[in-house]
């Protein structure tokens, strides 16, 4: 499986990372090196093996469905690059 420049561009788009067109060939090559390394997994007989979901045999705990925390608007907004009137501010989303 070989990754070409357009696939690299698509992956960058999915990952929401801007990659300049001139950087795409090198990126595609790096992907191919890493994926080539990963290809070894194809040699393993995985017939009948379930994908691991939890490394320790445990069930995720449940908690009561009640409000346990809250009222921290100021603390939550404290580190925002742009916060206004109690909200996070972002560029216009809807035309």
């Amino acid at each position, binding site marked *: 499986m070989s990754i070409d420049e357009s696939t690299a561009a698509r992956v*960058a788009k999915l990952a929401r990372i801007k990659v300049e067109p001139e950087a795409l060939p090198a990126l595609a090559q790096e992907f191919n090196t890493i994926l080539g390394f990963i290809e070894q997994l194809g040699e393993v007989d995985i017939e009948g093996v379930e994908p691991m979901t939890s490394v320790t045999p445990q069930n995720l705990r449940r908690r009561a469905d009640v409000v346990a925390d809250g009222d921290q608007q100021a603390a939550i907004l404290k580190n925002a690059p742009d916060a206004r009137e109690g909200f996070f501010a972002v560029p216009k989303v809807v035309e």
Partner: protein
Amino acid sequence: MTELNKLGLADARDALRKGETTSKELTEACLKAIEGAGALNAFVHHTPELAMERAAAADERLKGSEEAPAMCGLPIGIKDLFCTKGVPSQAASRILEGFKPEYESTVSQNLQDAGAVMLGKLNMDEFAMGSSNETSTYGNAINPWRRGNEDTALTPGGSSGGSAAAVAADLCLAATGTDTGGSIRQPAAFTGTVGIKPTYGRCSRWGVVAFASSLDQAGPMTKSVRDAAIMLEAMSSFDPKDSTSADLAVPNFEAALTGDIRGKKIGIPKEYRMDGMPDEIATLWADGAAMLKDAGAEIVDISLPHTKYALPAYYVIAPAEASSNLARYDGVRYGHRAKLDAGDGITEMYEKTRAEGFGPEVQRRVMIGTYVLSAGFYDAYYNRARRVRALIKKDFDDVFAAGIDSILTPATPSAAFGLGEMTDADPIKMYLNDVFTVTVNLAGLPGIAVPTGTNSQGLPMSLQLIGRPWEEGDLLSSAYALEKAAGFVAKPQKWW
């Protein structure tokens, strides 16, 4: 008394309890050592005032009580990956520039509650992705060790490179680290220090910046196995805020250090004898096995047949989880936001912010993770890797079921290498640093790196012991026996 910053945790604790020194004196000694060690670039955020405040409080607590916790008054460093309230915590990434958490990670809170004194935050690879501390936004941390009389700057390893350098150079008595594929044990091995990654679920992940959630674990980096036992106990807890935290009592790990390993079965896995293994590593390993045998253990040849597939499985699973975890860095809630051009919308904001904020290795892994999770490849890559992971864990389950108590392996394929030496190599070469450690993360097991010798250039080298899940006490005791037998006491010559 020796210089106070050179003490380990156990000795400093004992001196405090006997009234031979104070937390303030210990803390001042460390702050002075840190001030003189700028060249190592280990501490990247300094909190001297906070440290002296906490030292004063610890001294009060020590005066008032015979029963102060073991960590009370002991100055330590905290890896930048741990969120610390009001103190910069940016995972060595530009994207978290300026971030000062409004909360404290459970592990650092546990240490603080026990009276430990935070000296500052420690350098690391960006988002803990790296094996040489060269991906940090703060620049490289430098290993205090050098090859003979050469002045080539060596890596302290990664990702907990700052922690390892700081402990080895006696800038603090101990430090926290985190380990996703070897990030505690490899830097410990490169610096002649002790590092343990506990069983997955022993230390809470809450408030630790997430890299790969099914693999990440915090642990201590210390000057001795006893210190590791003391600090691991203080870091561990059941935490309802981490859904994978184990609801188990935390044992007294120090009390488990009998060093009596008579009758223990130590496995030597044949698959770890890699092609091209340097003679000095092979000799170190054989010597370690002989030491444990002399101490009364039974050495048993074992097989972990899927070992070869651990690194490729890791390089699917870890990037997949990272791509998901790092989706939160969007320039909205915290950290860096790119300057936008007129007409830029929210997508441009995400894309520019993440391109500016993430370094090349982080970008590479996020995109690999995105690819292996994308439609059409999820089964071929991600699910296949998770099935291989189940087989890797089964390899360990089988040998433990056959009566093996712990497993002895080299910790790293080489001693510390020079900074920049891997720059031109492809990424896989760097990834191979974790070849002996990554299996342990995939299987969720505890593993400890113990320095047992030096190479021909005088650099420290370590062996790794791998234990049964939840039996860190037993593992630490075996490590203690190995430490005693090896008698490793070398320290780096001060040049900084």
